[in-house]
């Protein structure tokens, strides 16, 4: 079955070409929308068929490479357009195409009447095409093509409504937010490239299987491995919005909501997690980097979650929540629980996509209002949106037996058993904050008395929007059953499925302490208590008083302001990095280096040449007779030379 992997990538490409070239002339939104949606839906079916084939074959035969053509050949260096179909990539493909399809369908309703309807679907298909190349690539170069491709689509879609204003730190237009995302990602991409160069220098190849085979003979603690993995991880901090490069993601909310759901929550931002998991062997050989990954992940989880406590824009809350959840995934990777990281990628894709689409439904109903302080009491008006949003909120807060409970609990448990108590404590505290801000948001948005203006008439969204919500909510409930831990009598199917991919990495990691099931139950109980108490307080406080934030601001003004202003990180970056860079560029690079030195040199050269030619051109009079005279004189000279010599 795996031979058909080319089709998975082909359909989004067809959709992109058809909508990109002819979409402008197709009158019917439905036609454009369904072309775009089917271009993602069909690959999902193909991927599902491939998965079915893999399930039916023995473990050793599940990983295959399909080479389409030679892309770059230079001497002994060769890069193929080749796709690696294995347990990990097929899982990611299913997530990307499955969630992607639902979001495409949702967009048909959400983008109804937009001037750039066809443009939107073209970009979305381009995104899916790039993302599939990223997850299916069998070498770093093709992966980087996808990596850059999704970055480009992210830029295009954040700035999709380029005429719209968007407020942020030194941001006034959506275009500024798009630029910010692009520039911050460039830093990460640059590190990714350096990492690739190092890999090529070290192993002489950029194909995953060759690199991994050569690396498996190395001993852990190699300093080259440290730099390679660190550079790749810096790449991941850009794409996956980790400290210190996470600042672009909250501003990426300038884009249409389906884009936030698809690119900035479910798929693209998990690319970094996937990339680290794909290189798990290299990371296992660099324990120092693993530690850095775990610490950065834990820090990101708690910093972003605490910022999320004090945001009032429904999408901003979700954005910081995404950053925080991505932090969990990196925490898992950092302690060596690669499966747990990928598991959370999957469950997060379900419930976060559902939450974002739900927020889109709310924004749609409220006529582009995003401030949760001006909402309230929406539950009876839009029940489908409310219940799906509520289910997903329970999932992200970690209520058993919803999907978020299993994946988050596995991460926290791994953080404790394979990492340290401190990492677990940070993760647990972030989990408490997560549950709290989620139910603060749910309460402020849907419950209590309406606070919206009389002239607004909120309404439930059309079926194209609610059906994807219901499907995603269903997945958010059931998605976790793939990874029920052994302690709860589950088989942890996902663990077994992915084990061959991470086998070699796990062999090189120190074995985890064995703890009794009782300890595990205890930690689960703590997780549940954390989730429930976050829910309880979030609901109770904001149901009683929707303006509770003002009370907090009055009582602990400094702390509250710091949180609501995002720890002044954006301001700090502006002051510490952006402004000095701009000032240096303007005053030194532009005026001194460029204007004075480079322009001076080039213009000086031109002036010297001009002054010489000013003299020399006098010889060329333009009078034919004087030229002829020269010829005759020259002839006579030559003749004289011959005759006399």
């Amino acid at each position, binding site marked *: 079955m795996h031979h058909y992997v080319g089709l998975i990538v082909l359909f989004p490409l067809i959709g992109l070409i058809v909508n990109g070239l002819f979409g402008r002339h197709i009158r019917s939104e439905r036609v454009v929308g369904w072309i775009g949606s089917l271009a993602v839906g069909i690959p999902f079916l193909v991927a599902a068929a491939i998965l079915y084939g893999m399930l039916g074959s023995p473990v050793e035969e599940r990983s295959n490479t399909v080479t389409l053509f030679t892309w770059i050949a230079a001497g002994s260096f060769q890069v193929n357009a080749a796709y690696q179909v294995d347990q990990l990539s097929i899982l990611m493909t299913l997530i990307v195409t499955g969630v992607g399809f639902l979001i495409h369908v949702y967009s048909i309703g959400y983008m109804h009447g937009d001037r750039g309807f066809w443009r939107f679907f073209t970009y979305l298909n381009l995104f899916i095409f790039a993302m599939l190349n990223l997850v299916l690539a069998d070498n770093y170069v093709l992966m980087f093509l996808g990596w850059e491709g999704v970055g480009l689509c992210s830029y295009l879609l954040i700035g999709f409504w380029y005429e719209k204003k968007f407020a942020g730190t030194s941001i006034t237009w959506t275009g500024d937010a798009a630029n910010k995302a692009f520039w911050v990602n460039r830093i990460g991409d640059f590190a990714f490239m350096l990492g690739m160069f190092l890999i090529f220098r070290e192993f002489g190849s950029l194909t995953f299987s060759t690199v991994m085979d050569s690396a498996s003979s190395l001993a852990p603690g190699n300093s080259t491995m440290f730099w390679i993995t660190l550079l790749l991880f810096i790449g991941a901090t850009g794409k996956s919005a980790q400290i210190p490069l996470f600042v672009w993601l909250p501003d990426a909310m300038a884009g249409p909501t389906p884009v936030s759901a698809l690119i900035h929550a479910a798929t693209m931002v998990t690319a970094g997690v996937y990339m680290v998991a794909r290189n798990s062997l290299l990371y296992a050989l660099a324990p120092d980097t693993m530690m850095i990954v775990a610490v950065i992940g834990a820090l990101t989880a708690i910093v972003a979650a605490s910022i999320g406590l004090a945001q009032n824009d429904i999408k901003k809350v979700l954005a910081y929540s995404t950053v925080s959840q991505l932090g969990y995934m990196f925490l898992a990777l950092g302690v060596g629980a690669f499966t747990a990281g990928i598991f959370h990628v999957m469950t997060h894709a379900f419930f976060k996509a559902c939450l974002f689409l739900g927020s889109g439904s709310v924004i749609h109903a409220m006529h582009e209002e995003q401030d949760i302080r001006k909402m309230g009491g929406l539950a009876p008006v839009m029940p489908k949106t409310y219940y799906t949003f509520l289910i997903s909120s329970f999932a992200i807060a970690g209520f058993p037996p919803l999907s978020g409970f299993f994946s988050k609990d596995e991460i926290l448990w791994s953080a404790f058993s394979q990492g340290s108590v401190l990492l677990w404590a940070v993760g647990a505290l972030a989990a408490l904050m997560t549950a709290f801000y989620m139910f603060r948001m749910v309460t402020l948005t849907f419950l209590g008395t309406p606070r919206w203006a009389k002239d607004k008439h909120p309404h439930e969204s059309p079926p194209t929007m609610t059906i994807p919500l219901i499907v995603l909510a269903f997945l958010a409930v059931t998605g976790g059953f793939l990874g029920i831990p052994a302690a709860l009598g589950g088989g942890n199917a996902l663990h077994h499925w992915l084990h061959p991919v991470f086998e070699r990495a796990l062999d090189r990691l120190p074995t985890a302490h064995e703890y009794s099931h009782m300890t595990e139950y205890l930690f689960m109980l703590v997780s549940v208590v954390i989730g429930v108490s976050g829910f309880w307080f979030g609901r109770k406080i904001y149901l009683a008083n929707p303006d509770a934030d003002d009370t907090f601001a009055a009582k602990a003004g400094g702390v509250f302001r710091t949180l609501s202003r995002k720890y002044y990180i954006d301001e700090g970056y502006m002051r510490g990095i952006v402004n000095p860079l701009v000032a240096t560029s303007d005053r030194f690079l532009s005026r001194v280096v460029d204007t004075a030195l480079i322009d001076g040199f080039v213009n000086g050269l031109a002036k010297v040449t001009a002054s010489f030619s000013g003299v020399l051109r006098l010889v060329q009079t*333009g*009078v*034919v*007779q004087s030229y*002829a*005279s020269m010829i005759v004189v020259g002839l006579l000279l030559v003749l004289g030379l011959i005759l006399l010599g």
Partner: protein
Amino acid sequence: MIPISHYLILSAVMFTIGCAGVLTRRNAIIIFMCIELMLNSVNLTFVAFSAYLGDSAGQIIVFFVMAVAAAEAAVGLAIVLALFRNKKSVDINDVNILKW
């Protein structure tokens, strides 16, 4: 029998006169006539050598030169005529408009 050197000296004198005329005169028709003079001095050399060496090839080349000269005269005079119609002058100083 006139020695060949006489022919050659006469030819050289004619060529020099023609060359000097081309280089110094400003009247297009006179320049034109000077070119004819140069061509014919070469013709004279060819014929002289042909007779001296008893080889008819030289005389045949002279016919070619005369044919080319006739064609050139036709085109050249046509240009001069067109020039005169436009400029009411055949002075080449009046037609240096392509000069910077």
